């Protein structure tokens, strides 16, 4: 009965563990990972496709803040990471390449306000 187990036990004593010591060591994140969004307002055409394709309605089109409104008169996507399921449909449907998913996965937060990702990061939204 124990014949199969004992050699395995001895082998385990000298073999490498299956896990890595995170955060000192981490498994590399592959290309094409669906992590935090990188949005480029400069190339966005405000077509609203990302907001319409989002299965969780996590994207809302909002106006630019007052100081940017002359240059950016349309509406732009604001992402609610609390609702997002990171499916990447917004990235796939975006014809101008303004919406991309990155390898960022350190997303946990204690501050509910930081869950919203406005298109213009610096100031308040209307």
């Amino acid at each position, binding site marked *: 009965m*124990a014949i199969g*187990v004992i050699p395995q036990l001895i082998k385990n004593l000298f073999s490498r563990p299956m896990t890595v010591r995170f955060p000192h060591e981490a498994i590399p994140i592959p290309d094409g990972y669906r992590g935090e969004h990188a949005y480029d307002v400069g190339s966005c055409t405000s077509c609203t*496709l990302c907001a319409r394709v989002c299965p969780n309605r996590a994207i809302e089109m909002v106006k630019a803040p007052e100081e940017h409104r002359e240059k950016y008169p349309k509406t732009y996507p604001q992402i609610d990471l609390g609702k997002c399921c990171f499916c990447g*449909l917004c990235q796939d449907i975006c014809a101008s390449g303004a919406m991309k998913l990155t390898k960022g996965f350190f997303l946990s937060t204690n501050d509910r306000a930081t869950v919203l990702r406005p298109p213009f990061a610096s100031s308040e939204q209307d």
Partner: protein
Amino acid sequence: MRATPVNRVTGADGITEGCRTEDGFDLYFGPVHPGSGNFGVKLTVRGEEVVAARADPGYLHRGFEKLMEYRTPMQNSVLSDRLCILESLNWNLVHAEAVDRLHDTEIPDRAKYIRVIMAELSRIQSHIIWYGVLSKALGFDTGFKVAFGYRDYVLDLFEFVTGGRVYPAGYICPGGVRRDFPKGTKERIRELLTKMEKMSREFEAYDNATIRTRVKGIGVLALDDAIRLGATGPVLRASGLAADVRRDAPYEVYDKLDFEIPVHEEGDAYARSIIQRREIEESIKIIRQALEQLPAEELPPVKPKAAGKIPEGEVYVRNEIARGEAGVYMKSVGESHPYRCKIRGPDFLHMIPVLEHLLVGAEVADVPAIYWSLNICPADMDR
């Protein structure tokens, strides 16, 4: 702050008032129990014997069938991941096939092979979880940890191919797959299969007398009961019927692949655990063949469309997933969303009629072994 102790009223025999019934004593197994998943069974026990069992579903109900009526097929693809967290890719495939059939789409050959490879990897991954949780239920913690360690190798591959470890976000979608295999995937899958074979040998080595005493002759499901109660998949095959949708009504490219259907006559928890290990080996065989036959031409990615309508009609598609037979009935009236999407999950029958039938007459200590030997998934059952 200290929690206020619950003021329990106990009788002379120490049993909490209200739990004592005419038949014996009510014992709740789940839904918040380390050994039950998100699902509960109300047991009535007399001494060590279970005299009645009543499944209590609904704890994990999320209303997928209704949600799907308000979403486009591509959005539903993403949603279909969540039908069973433990084998998302298989559920992606059932849903995608139903939409494809309504659209009458011809899927490129390479996409069909990729679908089969990913579905079989998902089956292996799901069976590894099954092995792990069954070991945990038997008190064999090493088996649980080894299994979940190996599962991560499969998840690494899923991450590489689909961009997510557990949720592929509708990787298998209507029209094919969302993107082709990245460069070097074939080699990575072959490396993974070598690891899976090593794992299979380890699982064989752990199959010793201690484990057998816990599962042999426990939870015996006779073939006529299995058929009467609607068991499918590994549970039915462990009772002696060689039924498998992959062979009986082949879909995708299963008719071009050579594989066996493991069958056992005993119908007990041990037979089910053997079927589980044999099926991992068969899936490895299927993936090796599919990799050999995989066409070389490049596959264009399938992108979501801004607008589109599902042609009018109704279909029923069934697939063999790790837990048994999964079906999707979809009706369209020519709108962008399906009019109705009925989902048939194998675990609805495994976790209610079959489980209730098997638990009656069992001992309390055998409840987790019977429960987990059925390869259950509360997410699939409650939907």
